């Protein structure tokens, strides 16, 4: 068992890269690894609760909830999230809120880091 931290950044909500990141996390957890997920920039919109799962759209909430139940630590960048009008009561329960140093601290204790940036 090893630890993977995935950094999920801009442009992931509304792109299938978010689906990729969540599926990778799920697979790693199911194989017995520890996974941390850091959300920053636009990706923070993914932790909004009450997402309606329409099959025309990728949706994150169901997958985030499943990951949280399996012990994945998910943390959203507080400033990025508030800038989007998403406050703590609007977020999926169990998601942590912290500053950017949370990501660096998790990286410090991780065996592998997949930082997903891109446009």
């Amino acid at each position, binding site marked *: 068992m090893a630890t993977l931290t995935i*950094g999920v*950044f*801009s*442009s992931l909500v509304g792109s299938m890269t978010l689906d990729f990141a969540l599926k990778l996390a799920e697979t790693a957890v199911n194989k017995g690894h520890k996974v941390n997920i850091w959300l*920053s*920039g*636009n990706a923070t919109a993914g932790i909004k609760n009450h997402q309606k799962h329409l099959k025309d759209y990728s949706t994150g909430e169901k997958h985030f909830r499943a990951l949280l139940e399996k012990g994945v630590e998910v943390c959203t960048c507080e400033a990025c999230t508030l800038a989007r009008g998403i406050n703590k009561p609007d977020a999926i329960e169990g998601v942590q809120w912290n*500053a*950017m*140093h*949370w*990501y*660096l*601290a998790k*990286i*410090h204790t*991780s065996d*592998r*880091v997949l*930082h997903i*940036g*891109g*446009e």
Partner: protein
Amino acid sequence: MADTKLAFIVQRPQYKSENPKLGITHAIAYQTVEILLEDGETVTPALCFIGDGVLACLKDQKAMGNYEITSSEMHLKTALLVDLDVLVCKEDLERFGITEDKIVDAEDMGAEKKIQVVPFETIQKEMESAKHVLFF
């Protein structure tokens, strides 16, 4: 008592997605990470600009006046003030004809640190010696 060395590589120009800006601000966050670490543990990022990413280093970015947002120039000044190593690829600057006098500094804010113009080879070595690499 471990230090985790990281290489932050900004390869895209600023001002499209937020991502290249987040490269700078996440590197700056090393300054406060100790509150989440055991005593004596540290994280040390090197912030490197390559490819079109080097365009972030141009002086006189008027983002606040035009769009009410902090410029990458201001973020870079902060990075220098908190003593981050900021490296910019010499070959790419030359390709774009950007001379050192056009590059951001934080002298006006009293920073001693300067952006270091280095060959790509040096940035490659930063990646090799880092535990993890993060591309923006």
